[in-house]
C-alpha cells in the first residue's frame, strides 16, 4: 500500500492572493506529485506568476493552504530553498562575471551542488564558460538562468514561462532541458501560455483563467472531454460546423437529408476538438 502511494511535492488548496484591491488568485487548488512535470497553462494575467511566486516564497498568500516539499513556502526555510531551483526570467546576473564564475557562486550555498562544468553541459553552455555574462546572447542568458537554477541539483524546479520570447530553435532547446529534468526524476512546475508547450512537456496541466483553475488533467484527457465531436462540411462556399456527442446518429441524419435533397456534403469531416479548442472554449467561457 505504502509503496503505491505517490509522494506529493506541492499541495495548493483554495489559494488566494490580492495586490491591494486586485484579487489575482481567487481560490486555486492543485497537487503535484514527485517526479511529475506539471503545467499551469493560461493567458496573460491569469495569475500563473502570482501562484508560482507564492510557492517560491517570494510572495505571501492572502488565503488558502500551500505546502512545498512539506514546508510552508511563506516561512522560506533554508532547508526548502536548498531543495528548489527557480528560473526567474528577470536576469539577476552579475554582468562582469564569467558564466562559470556565476554558476560556481550560485552553487556555494547548496549542500551537494552539481559540478559547474556538468551544469553548463546540461544546459548547453559548455563552450561558454569563460565568456562574460554581459557578452552572452539572449538565448544563452536564458540557458544561464537554467544553469543557476540547476547547479544546486534541486529536486523541484520552478520555470515561469520558460520559453516566452524564444525563437523556435531556442524553444526546442529549452524543451530538451525540461525533458532532461523529467528523465533525472525532478519535479517540475512550469507555467506557459503556449498550449503546445503544455502538451509537449507536461504530465498534467491545470488551465488557469482569471485566478481560477477552469480545467485540470493530463493534456490528452482535456482534449475530448465533454465537448464531443465536431462534424463539418462545406456548403455554398463556407464551412458549416456542428458539435455532437453522438456522431453516428448525427451523420446518419444529415447525410440522409442531403441524399434526399440531391445535395453533396463537400469535404465532410468528423473530428475530435483539439486541446486548443478546449483551451479557447474554457478561457473564453471564464472571461464571459
Amino acid at each position, binding site marked *: 500500500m505504502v509503496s503505491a502511494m505517490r509522494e506529493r511535492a506541492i499541495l495548493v488548496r483554495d489559494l488566494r492572493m490580492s495586490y491591494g484591491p486586485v484579487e489575482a488568485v481567487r481560490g486555486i487548488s492543485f497537487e503535484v506529485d514527485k517526479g511529475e512535470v506539471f503545467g499551469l497553462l493560461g493567458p496573460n494575467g491569469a495569475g500563473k506568476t502570482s501562484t508560482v511566486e507564492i510557492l517560491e516564497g517570494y510572495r505571501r498568500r492572502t488565503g488558502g493552504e500551500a505546502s512545498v516539499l512539506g514546508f510552508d513556502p511563506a516561512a522560506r526555510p533554508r532547508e526548502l530553498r536548498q531543495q528548489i531551483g527557480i528560473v*526567474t526570467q*528577470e536576469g539577476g546576473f552579475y554582468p562582469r562575471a564569467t558564466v562559470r564564475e556565476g554558476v560556481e557562486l550560485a552553487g*556555494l550555498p547548496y549542500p551537494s551542488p552539481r559540478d559547474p562544468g556538468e551544469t553548463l553541459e546540461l544546459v548547453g553552455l559548455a563552450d561558454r564558460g569563460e565568456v562574460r555574462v554581459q557578452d552572452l546572447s539572449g538565448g544563452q542568458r536564458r540557458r544561464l538562468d537554467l544553469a543557476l537554477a540547476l547547479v544546486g541539483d534541486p529536486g523541484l524546479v520552478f520555470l515561469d514561462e520558460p520559453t516566452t520570447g524564444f525563437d523556435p530553435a531556442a524553444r526546442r532547446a529549452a524543451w530538451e532541458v525540461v525533458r532532461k529534468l523529467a528523465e533525472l526524476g525532478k519535479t517540475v512546475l512550469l507555467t506557459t501560455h503556449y498550449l503546445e508547450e503544455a502538451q509537449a512537456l507536461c504530465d498534467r496541466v491545470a488551465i488557469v483563467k482569471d485566478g481560477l483553475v477552469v480545467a485540470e488533467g493530463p493534456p490528452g484527457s482535456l482534449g475530448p472531454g465533454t465537448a464531443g465531436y465536431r462534424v463539418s462540411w462545406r456548403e455554398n462556399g463556407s464551412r458549416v460546423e456542428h458539435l455532437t456527442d453522438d456522431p453516428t446518429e448525427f451523420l446518419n441524419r444529415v447525410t440522409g437529408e442531403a441524399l434526399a435533397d440531391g445535395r453533396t456534403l463537400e469535404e465532410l469531416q468528423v473530428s475530435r476538438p483539439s486541446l486548443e479548442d478546449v483551451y479557447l472554449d474554457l478561457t473564453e467561457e471564464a472571461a464571459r
Partner: protein
Amino acid sequence: MSLGGLVLGQYRFERKMFWRNPSAAFFTFALPLLFFVLIASVFSTDSDELEVLVPGIAGMSIVGATFTALSYYLVQLRENGILKRVQGSPMPASAYLAGLLASAVANAFVSVLVVVAVGRLGYGMDANLDVLELLVFTTLGVIAFGGLGVAFAFVIPNADSAPAYVNAVFLPLIFISGVFYSADDLPPVLDAIARALPLKHVIDGLSGALVTGTWPAGALLVLGVWCVAGVVAALRLFRWE
C-alpha cells in the same frame, strides 16, 4: 559550506567584480588621489595645507568607498534582479550582505592607507601618527557611511537616477565638511549643517590621528550616534526588490 565559508566566497567574488568595474575602481581609489595630487600641486605643498588636505581626502575616500559605492552598487543589484535571485536561493542574507559589505570596508581601509602613505612618503608630512585613533575614526566612518549608503540605495528609485541622487549628497557634503580647505570659517548656517553631519567629525578624528595628536571627544559622540542611525536605517530600508 559554513557561514564563514559563504561570507568568504561572496567576498572573493565581490573583489573580482570590483576590479573588473573600471568606474568603481576609479571613483574609489583614483579620484581621491587625483584630487589630492592636483590640490597639493595647485596650492604648493606647505605643511599647513597638507595637514588639512590629508585628513580631508582620507575622509572623502571613506565616503566614496562606502556611502557612494554601496548606494550605486545596491541600486544595480536590486534593479537587475540579483538581490531577488539571492533571496530565492539558500544563500543566507547575512552571509551575502557580509561578503558584500566586507568588500566595501576593505576598499575604505585601503584607500585611507594609500592617502596617508602618499601624504607621509610622497609629501613628507610627519606631524603625528596615532594608529589606534586612525583605526577608530576610520571604523566609525565606515560604519556610519556604510549604513547610510545601504539605506540610501533604497531611497534611489532606479539606476538612471542614482548618479544624481548620490552626487546631490556627496558633493555638498565634501564641500562643507572641510575636505579641501579648513572649514573653520564657514557661514554659520553651513557650519551648523556640517557639524550635524558625520563627515566633518570623521575628518576631525583623522586630523587628530594624523596632525594634532588630540582625541576629539565631541566627534566620537556624534559619530557614535550616526553609526547607530546608519545601521538602523539600513536595516529598516533594505528590500530585495
